[in-house]
């Protein structure tokens, strides 16, 4: 069973939202409603997230991604639709029950960290536990563990304003992890960091995820980030999810021109893998040809491909060949010129 399921979610701000939902369901345009002073922030969003998955929602500002995220933990009440967590409908809960769910099962990491400036690092990390009513000694131990996990051991007594942006967000992450909630909502959590730190944090999140296997919904406007982190990605535009799939799906088979224009700037070499560009071997494999696994990134493939005259062999863990990657094909894909052709082969 999926951990989280969004089922035909709508969020409409303004007058007579229910009528607006009906018209949207009948295919009305968002701009029509806006002319009447009603803003449809999220339109008919549906997806599922499996346990242990990182699900990325990607979209530009105003696409409704943050609104969508806030409906998942009930900070915003959906105008229509349901949010199922382990099969329980969160939209049917009373405010008190909803708070209970938020304090124990879902935690959140914010874009601008949202650390409480009047609490030190340890107290910030322990905040969720404090809300749960965990006794001081226990919550401080658990908060310290979470901080250590995020690489902040020794900073417990510091104050948020003494830390760099990256470190502050680690505190934010530790605060979210300390409650042992299984679902993590991350709202553009790395967007406010400078590029090097952002990359660092992405790596750290992936490493942590290896160990903790949380279920994560990650919001971003950065497609590279989405591709790096996401097991599955939803691309949003004007409140609707326009494409839902893996990084490769989106890169290789963009659903429409909008997505296609979006992916132009993506560094394919760091997203696409050998499996996506390999072709069936045309003849016997050269014995001295280099061999790689199907998950190898194209960026790592390029050097190998350049070394010898033969195509690189893609083989599975057992050592049997799955296909080969030809140089011309590799170059074409990296150049983004032959996506149709790539599709045909993949």
């Amino acid at each position: 069973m999926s951990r989280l399921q969004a089922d035909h979610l709508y969020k409409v701000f303004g007058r007579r939202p229910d009528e607006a939902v009906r018209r949207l369901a009948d295919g009305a345009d968002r701009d029509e409603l806006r002319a009447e002073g009603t803003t449809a922030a999220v339109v008919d969003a549906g997806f599922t997230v499996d346990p242990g998955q990182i699900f990325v929602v990607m979209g530009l500002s105003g696409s409704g991604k943050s609104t969508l995220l806030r409906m998942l933990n009930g900070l915003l009440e959906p105008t229509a639709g349901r949010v199922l967590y382990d099969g329980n409908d969160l939209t049917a809960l009373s405010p008190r029950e909803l708070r209970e769910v938020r304090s124990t099962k879902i935690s959140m990491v914010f874009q601008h960290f949202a650390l409480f400036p009047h609490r030190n690092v340890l107290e910030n990390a322990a905040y969720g536990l404090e809300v749960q009513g965990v006794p001081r000694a226990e919550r401080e131990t658990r908060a310290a563990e979470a901080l250590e996990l995020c690489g902040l051991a020794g900073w417990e007594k510091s104050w948020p304003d003494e830390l760099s942006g990256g470190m502050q967000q680690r505190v934010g992450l530790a605060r979210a992890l300390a409650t042992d909630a299984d679902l993590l909502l991350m709202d553009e959590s790395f967007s406010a960091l400078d590029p090097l730190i952002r990359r660092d944090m992405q790596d750290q999140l992936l490493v942590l995820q290896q160990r903790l296997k949380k279920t994560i919904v990650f919001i971003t406007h950065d497609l590279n980030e989405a591709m790096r982190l996401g097991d599955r990605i939803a691309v949003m535009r004007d409140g609707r999810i326009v494409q839902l799939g893996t990084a490769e799906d989106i890169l290789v088979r963009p659903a429409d021109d909008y997505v296609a224009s979006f992916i132009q700037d993506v560094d394919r070499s760091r997203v696409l893998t050998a499996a996506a560009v390999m072709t069936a071997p045309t003849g016997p494999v050269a014995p001295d040809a280099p061999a790689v696994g199907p998950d190898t990134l194209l960026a790592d493939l390029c050097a190998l491909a350049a070394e010898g005259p033969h195509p690189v062999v893609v083989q599975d863990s057992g050592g049997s060949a799955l296909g080969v990657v030809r140089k011309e094909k590799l170059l074409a894909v990296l150049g983004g010129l032959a996506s149709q052709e790539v599709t045909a082969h993949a």
Partner: protein
Amino acid sequence: MPRLPLGQWVDSSVDWLQAQFSWLFDAVSTGVTGLYDGIDAVLSAPQPLLFAGILAVVAWWLRGLAAGVLAFAGFVLVDSVQLWDEAMATLSLVLVSTLVTLVIAVPLGIWAARSKTVSAVLRPVLDFMQTMPAMVYLIPGIIFFGVGVVPGIIATIVFALPPGVRMTELGIRQVDGELVEAAEAFGTTPRNTLLRVQLPLALPTIMAGVNQVIMLGLSMVVIAGMVGGGGLGGAVYRAIGNVDIGLGFEAGVSIVVLAMYLDRMTGALGRQVSPLGRRAAAKARAALGAKRVGAKLWAHRPQPVTALVGVVVLALAAGGMGFLGGSGGATSTTASGTNGGHGKKVSIGYIPWDEGIASTYLWKELLERRGYEVETKQLEAGALYTGLAGGQLDFQTDAWLPVTHAQYWKKYQNKLEDLGSWYGPTSLELSVPSYVKGVDSLADLKGKAGQFKGRIVGIEPSAGMMGILKDKVLKEYGLEGEYKVVDGSTPGMLAELKRAYDRKEPVVVTLWSPHWAYSAHDLKKLKDPKGSWGEGDGVHTLARKGFAAENPEVGAWLKNFSLTEKQLTDLEAVIQETGKGKEQQAVRTWLDRNPGLAEKLTPQ
């Protein structure tokens, strides 16, 4: 354009409110008075120097050694100019109004921060409250609550409420939305979001509001002094009434000491109680780091525990001494109380006019010698009559009847009792310096407006003679339109007279006899051949209805009271010589010079 009777409507609704809700106003009045008396009792119990010490330790703890030393010096100064009791009364007044204001303002501010509707409704109301001149609140204040500290406190509360509400609302709204969202995202209840996130973060702004509330309260004390609020405001008002620059300065400086202390302490307290403030202070200290030892010493602050112990020790010492002093005082009161009055309380109101001060303190001394406990209240004329009619005052000795105070007598006569005239006749007049030639009677003023810049320098518009002047005298002598009567105050008129006199400029002022101005300057009373000013007044003693029946002894004394011109001017002269604030001492000196008079005035 038809005249909209807005004032009348307000007037009648105030009457209606008074009739319908007198129980409520009485309850409020009792509550506020109780709170004020309680705080005042605590503040004035300790020896001044000990209490100054307590305040200094608090300053030391909150701001450092230098602040402590300065605070101590400031309060010692207040004590040394003998305004300590007044300062404590003012402090109590400010504390009570601040307390009540905050109890109302902070919840309102929180409510406004959480609801746009409430905020939208409150905003114009607060604007109205804040921009309406504070004096205006005093009028219904006196009618609802009677003279004394209550209308002053109520007016202060109304005046000081808006910044309290605004700053609370602003503080809460200023808290970063993401922080509130973070609190909610972790399942915090709305109440805990308020208590754990919003209020702590809004605290610096709220404390700035508290500071403003206190400062506005302090700025109102002078106005409160006009309606019998007493304290330093009363001293300032007395100083204004007597053109007493010295007392005015002393009282003013005392207010400044209080204001600086309260301002700096609430500022520092704001930093102490708010976690953010403590954080900023710690940072500043760390940045200061390796400064000179001297600076460190002056900035040294004791640990809260040390400060607390210091305050408690001083307070215990103060309490012990206050207790001993109190019991000593009680013994002496009973000793003098064997004399008939049995400590019965009598309260006398007076307008700060020379004959009023003289006769009031004379009666204070006489009644105290007979074992009464006498309280005197200096008031503005309107407030004096309202208070007397309302029964908060027992009697006053300075009613100019039948002419000058006719309007008050007409309004309140069935609530008052005339105990007869003790001095008279008096006269009202316009006067010019004797160097102004060719103007000897009111009729001579006609056509000379240019010479006097078309102005007649008047006194308080509430004074009876101003009404007579404008409605009758000017009309009968055909001076209407030619001269403009300048409303002002008695001290203002006297100051203008002195200024013009020193520069030998022509000036016309409203004056009355007896008045010391005639001995200070060489003046001409303008003749009144048409008798427009009316017959001379007698200076009457007025009591509240029923006072004489309840206190037949005092009633009889007052009915038989009379002074000759010589006696009155002598007494006024002694009071002038002895100096302000020592009126009763002057009365004793005067009584010693007139042996047997006390027995004659208050026979047993």
